[in-house]
């Protein structure tokens, strides 16, 4: 029984570093969570040690009798347990209330979850032409509370950036929303937290928290149409992508590719991953993904197109140019 103590200590340390970890310290709600977590951890460890102590004493004790002292200890125990639980639920309610009262400063992001990718729209009220649509990535200004409106196009998913705040489900037919306040600049990772089918494991996106100025610059660049192809190989890739199967589902602003039912590729190369977190963004993985998306992420809705080698090079070259 002694072996448990070190493991319990490890629990407190664990999870405080890493891109996708609770207690990562990247957001206001996560800090509030950290505080409440410490209280619960200490109380539970104390109670556990008391129970262990009682058990050990009971196991080693040879003498009999002592009913009276046990009876009084019983009343004390029930009292202490009840009071502690009442205290814990009040503490939990207070923290929940403060989490819920975050002020909202006009920045709204609409996230629509699809089966196994994320569609993100940045809304600036009153200026519809400033609406920016990207996929599988989230850029947020540090220190600014942002309202994230959550909707699902098919099944139930769950939006969760552990470093910043708690999770909230995206449920079809319900408009859930959550206000998160990132407090630390950095790049974090988020992953769908509700089982949503075949590729629930590959439904992640990267969260970049940056100063307000950089964020506004990024938003402005995002509104620009896609870069024109420069090299002849890129031109060949442009020709294929904007006329063949890719254009039916994907959208690249400023080109005839205007499909709306798959991730937006206008600034594809500036993202950190391919296939919603399936592969890191580099040439080798881009080739692997284009050659056979079903092998990398079996069951996802992007079919295997069967590109010829030269078409593969051209398309990869063009996609890499879409910074």
């Amino acid at each position: 029984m002694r072996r448990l103590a070190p493991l319990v200590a490890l629990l407190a340390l664990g999870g405080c570093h890493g891109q996708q970890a609770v207690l990562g310290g990247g957001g206001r709600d996560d800090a509030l969570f950290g505080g409440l977590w410490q209280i619960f951890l200490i109380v539970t460890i104390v109670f556990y040690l008391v129970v262990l102590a009682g058990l050990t004493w009971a196991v080693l004790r040879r003498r009999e009798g002592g009913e009276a002292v046990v009876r009084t200890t019983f009343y004390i125990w029930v009292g202490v347990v009840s009071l502690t639980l009442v205290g814990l639920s009040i503490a939990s309610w207070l923290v929940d209330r403060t989490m819920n009262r975050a002020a909202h400063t006009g920045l709204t992001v609409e996230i629509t979850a699809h089966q196994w990718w994320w569609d993100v729209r940045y809304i600036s009220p009153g200026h519809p032409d400033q609406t920016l649509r990207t996929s599988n990535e989230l850029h947020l200004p540090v220190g600014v509370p942002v309202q994230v409106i959550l909707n699902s196009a098919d099944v139930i998913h769950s939006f969760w950036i552990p470093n910043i705040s708690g999770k909230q489900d995206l449920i079809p037919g319900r408009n859930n929303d959550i206000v998160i306040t990132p407090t630390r600049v950095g790049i974090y990772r988020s992953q769908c937290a509700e089982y949503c089918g075949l590729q629930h494991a590959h439904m992640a996106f990267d969260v970049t928290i940056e100063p307000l100025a950089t964020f506004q610059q990024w938003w402005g660049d995002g509104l620009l149409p896609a870069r024109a192809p420069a090299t002849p190989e890129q031109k060949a890739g442009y020709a294929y992508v904007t006329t063949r199967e890719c254009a039916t589902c994907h959208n690249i602003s400023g080109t005839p590719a205007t499909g709306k039912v798959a991730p937006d590729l206008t600034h594809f190369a500036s993202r950190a991953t391919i296939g919603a977190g399936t592969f890191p963004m580099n040439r080798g993985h881009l080739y692997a993904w284009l050659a056979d998306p079903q092998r990398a992420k079996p069951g996802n809705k992007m079919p295997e197109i069967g590109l010829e080698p030269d078409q593969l090079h051209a398309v990869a070259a063009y996609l890499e140019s879409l910074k």
Partner: protein
Amino acid sequence: MPSPCRASLLIVALLAGGCDQMRNDPRGHPLPETPPLVSTVLSPVRADPRAADYQNNAFQVSNGQLYYHWMNCTGCHSEGGGGIGPSLMDVNWRYGSTMEDVVQSISNGRPNGMPAFGGKMTAAQIWQTAAYVRSLSQHVPQSIRSGRSEGLSVGEPSTLRDPHPYRAVTPKQDEATVK
């Protein structure tokens, strides 16, 4: 599950409607295993083996339903009732109702306005969409089709629907708009 276990349970497989109907092979073109005994008895042997695999597999028909909505087929054919394009639920087929004919209609288009999706969709997607189109007129076993879709209700519960294809009143003049 090793194959001997599967073979030994073939009798029960007949009861459960054949095990290949649920194969969830996302690759899109399932290995052309011989279609389960049950379906070959009911429907004649096909020229192209792929037809049976797409048509008898619930996963492929469900993908076909997805592409039927993504490729805007509902704009002209609605949920099978017709509109700009003809109805896909009844027995009138202008260009043939076998899987190969429907795949031909989708990939090459038809003269009177059906656009060609050949370059816009991959072969697997076209086969899956064709399987769904044929399921609209009950050419696909009942156990393969889904009860309903998660959207506007486009029909009453299946217990009230007549199970066999609807025999539309073929108008006396011929189909072509030009006399």
